[in-house]
């Protein structure tokens, strides 16, 4: 017992530097944002004196609600598509021989050698009305000649999935690598079909990897700014774009802060829920 508590003390000592870092560069600035959201704006793009609820109140506005809703569904859809693609990829990565494993992991990591912005601009070129993809699809009759591939929410989902897929594959692969594949044989042995074994044994077995993967897409997607800015157009706008407009176009920092708070809270909510749930599940029953 005593030894355990000493161990705890030592562990918290170890985590002190990261705690310090986190509070200096994350918690304190966030508190600033909260404070600014409660300040009035002044006409010169600065912060006025006194306190007000107006910024927060003005958020209840159909325009914002539509953007918030779009932000949510784009993030959920992107996360879902990423998981659906990354799970079988992670499974096969864990099962192929070591040589192929290295090769495929290379393929996943190679795109990072090119700058993120350049890759998104490349998508813009690809999806452009005069681009190859558009022309090929229109030629084959799969889409009408007037259909636009660029500047809509679909383009945002596509590029978000493209950007974050590696970040979902890696945690799923890491979890699958630790998975005991004999369990799948056991499930098949007991009468489960291939897919049943996959759903009832493999997916629960890589649960932690899946949760991490979801958070790795969902949270950055919620705060997306660059991707919708480049390929989204007005019909693909997300909260991040609105915040940028308030800062750069309207020069209204308090308004931007109010929007940011909504974003921060909506990022923290799923994170905290997941952490609490995970903690509850992983606690052995004997301790309860």
């Amino acid at each position, binding site marked *: 017992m005593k030894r355990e508590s000493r161990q705890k003390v030592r562990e918290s000592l170890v985590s002190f530097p990261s705690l310090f870092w986190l509070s200096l560069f994350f918690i304190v600035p966030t508190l600033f944002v909260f404070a600014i959201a409660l300040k009035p704006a002044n006409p010169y793009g600065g912060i006025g004196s006194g306190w007000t609820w107006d910024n927060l109140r003005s958020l209840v506005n159909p325009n914002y609600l539509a953007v918030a809703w779009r932000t949510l569904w784009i993030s959920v859809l992107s996360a879902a598509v990423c998981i659906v693609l990354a799970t079988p990829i992670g499974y096969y990565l864990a099962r192929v021989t070591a040589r192929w494993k290295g090769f495929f992991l290379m393929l996943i990591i190679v795109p990072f050698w090119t700058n993120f912005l350049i890759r998104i601009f490349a998508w813009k070129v690809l999806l452009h009305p005069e681009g190859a993809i558009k022309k090929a699809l229109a030629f084959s009759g799969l889409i009408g000649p007037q259909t636009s591939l660029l500047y809509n929410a679909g383009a945002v989902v596509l590029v978000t999935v493209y950007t974050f897929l590696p970040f979902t594959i890696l945690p799923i692969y890491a979890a699958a690598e630790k998975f005991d594949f004999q*369990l799948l044989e056991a499930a*098949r*042995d007991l*009468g*489960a*079909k291939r897919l049943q074994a996959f759903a009832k044994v493999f997916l629960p*077995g890589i649960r932690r990897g899946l949760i991490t993967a979801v958070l790795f897409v969902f949270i950055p997607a919620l705060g997306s700014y660059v991707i919708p800015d480049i390929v989204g157009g007005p019909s693909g706008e997300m909260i991040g774009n609105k915040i940028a407009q308030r800062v750069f176009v309207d020069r209204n920092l308090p308004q931007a802060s109010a929007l940011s708070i909504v974003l921060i809270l909506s990022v923290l909510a799923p994170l905290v829920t997941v952490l609490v749930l995970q903690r509850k599940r992983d606690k052995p029953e004997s301790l309860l």
Partner: protein
Amino acid sequence: MSEFLEFRNVSKRFGAIQAVDGVSLGIKKGEFFSLLGPSGCGKTTMLRLAAGFEYPDTGQVILDGADITDLSPNKRKVNTIFQSYALFPHLNVWENIAFGLRVAKRSKRDIETEVEAMLRLIRMGDQAGKKPDQLSGGQKQRVAIARALINKPQVLLLDEPLAALDLKLRQRMLIELDMIHDQVGITFLYVTHDQGEAMSLSDRIAVMDSGRIEQVGSPAEIYETPRTSFVAAFIGDTNFLEGEVTGLVESEYCQVKIADIPGVICFNDKSMKPGNPVYLSIRPEKIHISRDRPEESRLRNIVPAVVEDMIYLGSTTKYWVRTHGLRVQVLRQHFRFFLDEKPIRWNDDVWIWWHGDDGFMLDRYRAVDEHLVALPPRKVGEPEDNNEKP
């Protein structure tokens, strides 16, 4: 009775390794059948072929008259106890046992009654809510058995199920396995490299080596009349004495010259003729040892020897004696303890003797099997052992 589970000329190759090499084997209904052999001889591969995790390159697997060679594992009425148990870590004991019934979409009531019955069979009713990582090795083992048996398989496949347990637990699980086999009455195909396990549990044993079956028979048959020198060496200890047939005695026996011991009498079950080279195998416990010369008797071989080494084993003592340049193991059971009897000691002159029926003649064992013949350490400067190549 006809064969229930049958391998017909089955072969399986992994790259350069021929894991199973043309095996034909029949297992009867309700039998406790063991595959026994050294590690890497292809036992697990045989089980995986029966379970459907591997498909043979050639040959067929027949279950209850139907060809199941190409059937997928979930469609076979066989279940496996894996060497590592392979319990589902995210499910508790109850859910692990219920798994098979759930995927079979059985009714909730059925599942409950059958799982409860299984929990009673393995005496773990009070542990139903525990997760596998909270169980001891023996408990995991029992859950694995229950999880497999609840599907009412026609054959239960067990891959070295006791290998991961400590000695005491292993002995208890041996008894338990035996009881479960008696209670459920289904066919068990049991894989082990431990001859003790195979001997004590099995109705019949198949001894395997390098992907082939060396011999099939009851434990007693395999022990008493091994057909090959591999079997003789792998099952229990034995002495191998190399010699040559010099004559026949009463048609049933023959005389063998071993080293310079003349006229060793041996039962001639292989119809050897004078001039044939043979290998005589005699189990250490079949050889008697004493200080006094025993009475001459028909078919009794009596040889003088010198004690070189001895190990006291509690209920028995093991002696290594030298006679005519040969080193021979003798195992002596302690029947009585005579205070006035002078015990046999190191360097004593003794007599060893055995009955002509107790030795059996074999072909010479192959060079690759030499590691199986447990050689006692040889003293420096001594002549070659009897077990070495001439």
